[in-house]
């Protein structure tokens, strides 16, 4: 070959050509696969919401089961007022990511979706929650029953908590503790569900944290307190109004 491979011109042209080829092909791949990926993310979310009301779903059937159980949704602003949504409110609520609301927005701008589900004739209200664990974000879904107080189920997930320690929040051992707990005390005041050191006295408003996963437990505690207080205020206005019945 007559081309001088060590010349600057050749090197620069080669580099540019490589960038164009690589860049173009990646755009094509990413655009082709995008719809499938977005569907996966959505189904994963639906799966987690269903898990909070104790409905088991796989990634494949989460979509149909979600339609079957989730009947309505409300989007709240930071003052616990329902925001008016013109389009399909469930679809709109699904686009809200509790974790990025917490991470990327000032407290006053955050939106709080609430999913209203129906299972075996009774209604459940699923509250998405998001916060900070030890390494990265933690989030979850907590469902309360028709009394707007007793927890029917909870599911949690995390980005990168330590396996065997903080990551245990996403296991049934931690999640099932929430069932039957109450987010309001006997006087109807909001007390959240505290995540406390294991071995303490049993309470209706506390669950055992993870031994060795203290930071994650504290993160879950903070997240529940902060997010559920918003929903709690809304629940109060809800139980006063007759519109619910």
């Amino acid at each position: 070959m007559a081309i001088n491979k060590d010349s600057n011109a050749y090197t620069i042209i080669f580099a540019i050509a490589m960038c164009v080829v690589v860049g173009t092909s990646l755009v094509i791949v990413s655009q082709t696969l995008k719809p499938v990926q977005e569907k996966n993310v959505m189904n994963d979310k639906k799966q987690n919401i269903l898990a909070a009301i104790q409905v088991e779903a796989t990634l494949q059937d989460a979509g149909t089961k979600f339609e079957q159980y989730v009947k309505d949704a409300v989007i709240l602003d930071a003052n616990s007022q329902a925001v008016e949504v013109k389009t399909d409110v469930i679809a709109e609520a699904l686009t809200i990511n509790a974790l990025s609301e917490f991470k990327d927005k000032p407290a006053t701008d955050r939106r709080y979706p609430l999913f209203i589900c129906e299972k075996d004739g009774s209604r459940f209200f699923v509250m998405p929650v998001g916060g900070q664990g030890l390494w990265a974000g933690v989030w979850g879904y907590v469902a309360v029953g028709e009394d707007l107080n007793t927890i029917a189920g909870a599911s949690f997930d995390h980005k990168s908590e330590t396996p065997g320690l903080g990551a245990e929040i996403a296991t049934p051992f931690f999640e099932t503790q929430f069932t039957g707990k109450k987010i309001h005390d006997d006087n109807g005041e909001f007390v959240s569900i505290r995540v406390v050191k294991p071995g303490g006295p049993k309470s209706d408003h506390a669950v055992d944290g993870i031994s060795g996963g203290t930071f994650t437990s504290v993160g879950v505690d903070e997240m529940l307190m902060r997010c559920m207080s918003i929903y709690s205020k809304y629940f109060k206005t809800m139980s006063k109004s007759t519109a619910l019945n």
Partner: protein
Amino acid sequence: MSEATAPAKSPSEGLFSKKNRKLITDPLNDSNPITVQVLGICSALAVTVKLDNSVVMAASVTAVTIMGNFFMSLMRNIVPNRIRIIVQLVVVAWLVIIVDQVLKAYVYDVSKSLSVFVGLIITNCIIMGRIEAFALGNKPGPSILDGLGNGIGYGIILIFLGIVRELFGSGKLWNAQVLPANWIYSMDNPDGWYVLNNFMIMPPMALILVGLYIWAQRARNTKLIEAH
């Protein structure tokens, strides 16, 4: 020994000649990327808690070593020498992004639990190591075989770790209960005789297992033992 680059072959040589077959079989034992060359350890520790993760990671790395070797070997005569490492990096990164996108689209659960480690395939020394040591000096055919061999060599170790760690750490294999539930000790089942070994789930245990594997391998294959 491990970094030995096969000399260029004459054009008449068949793809599955003895020398080429060795390209596949060598990395399985004598020059295993993990246990002999000690490359790619980090991901072997991080993703082997469960067998399914191990298998997907092994397949992903194998795909990247094969394709990386293939593309770099095709380009070996036109790559400007001065930016050769950057070109390798771009090709590997390009392949890894494609693998990551495909996993996200078709095996979302696994891609979720592999999280950042798919992206980190880029930094897996096996891939750049094989491109630099082999693909840049050899034709595409043998380069593919070399990539395949090293990918499998890496995969074998991952799968071994995945089986041991999932079985003893969770009592499961491929997420299916293998140890009968009534054997496993828990609060609800105090009669169980086996306490799930939480240490198996932690990354350090993978390092210990790799160590045991290296020990066993060297005990059987004495030519791996360095002279002092």
